[in-house]
């Protein structure tokens, strides 16, 4: 167990190293930050002095080493626009994004398991066929279109739900303010969560369905029937537990992907999260913020994947042995 943990942490560190290099390399291709930083009246000489002062004229390796040293101490640079440490700017926006991902995850987990299981158990039922057809449509429609259509129907026409912002939030601790504490907050997070879930949900329904159908054909499920167990126990324990093993692995990767997808959703719903912030940062050529965002998102990816792998070991007993041997 310990050896496995150490191995995983080393892997995660290696991945983070690569991510940091790539993110840092991007900044040279984003345009000149000086154009945004200073007014038009500043002369080219002053600009060059400023560049020299900020270290923008140094070689890539020198710049990267300087950046990496600071990053290891928790300093990801200072945002040009906010004049604040980039990490602080992101940490202020992070809770909103994580809450959005949480909302979408609740919808996905809460719906995909029952719907996936149902369509696997009753593949020929009318409801199953309807779910499968709808899921194809769900996969095909891009997130921003779903979001705009939802705003049109629920906010503009029916006036049931607010179309932008976080609404009433309750302060939890630090920068964390939550949407889940008030009715108004819940109303505000509902549509963005659904929009964010709209691509992943059909994917998971189909994944769970196909894994479940395969499991239902297995010998151990047939044996469970031969033992005279009740159908519910066979479906929801014997089959579902085996179905979820591959689903957990895919799910972990998708959580990271969802953090990236928030860029679209947050922009449409004016959600004050870090996806929305990232797009603004790109517009302002706020390179330190862009680089910091990429590194934080990469970090979230690595952490969720590592956690999911550990979780997988808890659910799948056959992994434990391999781990002890590792």
């Amino acid at each position, binding site marked *: 167990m310990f050896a496995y943990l150490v191995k995983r942490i080393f892997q995660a560190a290696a991945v983070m190293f690569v991510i940091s290099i790539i993110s840092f390399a991007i900044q040279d291709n984003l345009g000149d930050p000086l154009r945004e930083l200073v007014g038009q009246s500043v002369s080219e000489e002053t600009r060059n002095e400023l560049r020299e002062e900020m270290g923008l004229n140094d070689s890539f390796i020198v710049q990267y080493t300087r950046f990496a040293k600071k990053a290891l101490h928790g300093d990801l640079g200072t945002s040009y626009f906010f004049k604040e440490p980039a990490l602080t700017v992101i940490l202020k926006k992070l809770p909103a994004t994580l809450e959005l991902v949480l909302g979408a995850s609740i919808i996905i987990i809460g719906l995909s398991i029952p719907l996936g299981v149902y369509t696997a158990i009753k593949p020929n039922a009318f409801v199953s066929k309807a779910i499968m057809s709808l899921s194809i449509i769900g996969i095909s429609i891009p997130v921003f279109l779903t979001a705009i259509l939802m705003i049109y129907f629920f906010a503009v026409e029916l006036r049931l739900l607010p179309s932008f912002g976080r609404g009433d939030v309750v302060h939890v601790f630090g920068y964390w303010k939550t949407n889940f504490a008030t009715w108004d907050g819940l109303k505000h997070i509902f549509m963005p969560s659904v929009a964010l879930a709209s691509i992943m949900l059909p994917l998971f329904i189909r994944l769970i369905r196909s894994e479940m159908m395969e499991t239902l*054909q*297995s*010998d*151990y499920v*047939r*044996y*469970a*029937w*031969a*033992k*005279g*167990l*009740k159908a519910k*126990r066979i479906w929801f*324990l*014997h089959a579902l*537990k*085996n179905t979820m*093993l591959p689903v957990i692995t895919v799910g972990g990767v998708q959580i990271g992907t969802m953090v990236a997808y928030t860029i679209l959703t947050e922009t449409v719903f004016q959600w004050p999260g870090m996806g929305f912030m990232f797009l603004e940062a790109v517009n302002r050529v706020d390179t330190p913020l862009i680089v910091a965002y990429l590194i934080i998102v990469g970090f979230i990816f690595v952490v969720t994947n590592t956690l999911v792998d550990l979780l997988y070991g808890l*659910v*799948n*007993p*056959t992994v434990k*042995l391999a781990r002890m041997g590792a």
Partner: protein
Amino acid sequence: MSLLSVRDLVVKFAMRHQTLTALDQISFELAQGERLGIVGESGAGKSITGFAILNLLSQPGFIAGGKIMFDGKDMASLSAEEMRLIRGDRIAMIFQDPMVTLNPVLTIGEQMVETLQAHRKISRRDAEKIAIVKLREVYIPAPEERLSQYPHELSGGMRQRIIIAIALLLDPQLIIADEPTTALDVTIQADIMELLLELCTNNKVSLILITHDLGVVSQMTERTLVMYAGKIIESGKTREIVNDPQHPYTQGLINALPQQTVPGQQLKQIPGNMPGLGSLPSGCAFHPRCDFATDVCKKTAPEFVSFADVKVACHEVARLHQTKEAEAKDG
């Protein structure tokens, strides 16, 4: 009264373009405590017979006709819940490959306790006690520790013993063992068979042993059915069938046993393969592979007729008996 009576059982498979007959007019009786062997090549319909009794045919198979009576009850008239209560409780089943029969993510204890709790109102603690007793009966060392182990921590032979222990948990009247040793090492096969025989005789449990090995059948069972292409072609006392096989197919199976061949010589095979269900030959399904086939065999299917102690479906056997009877009359 017999414990199990199968009458004219027909099982079909609804395929996309046609409906195939997998079992054709299968009939047999099984008395309480009796051990019956069902023998045949792969695809003869042996396993399907076993699954049809428990109504566990996998899609697209279905029972198309016939009657299965178990312990005086017509299985077709039972509700799904009544059928569930028979499975695992009155009729237990042992599957072919112990490596894939047990659920990989549940402990042995869990899989034993759930079986007891599905049929009896019993606490977990009491169920575990029974499980340990049964594990001891199948000679599993340190049974208390096994309960918390997962299937992958045990060998194939151990797993099959555990599956036998699960079969015995609720003291069934009938055990259907579908090739219980095919997937195991040769050295373990004999042990498992011996164990199964011992437990069945001690507990007066009826046994249906499905296998392709006539050698095993001769040691384990009292009566034997020989199946070919979904039909029973010979049935009778195991001793009779092994010592004096009537049907050319049964003869072929016995001649193919390694014990029947002088060391150094090639094993005597039956030429050809069993036909697929979609391409059954006309007349007697065995005629393309039979040394004694005549024109009659190609045209009409032989009837299943009793001769003294055995029943055989073969034109040639029928002809031989007729001439014998005629000679006896004349003589």
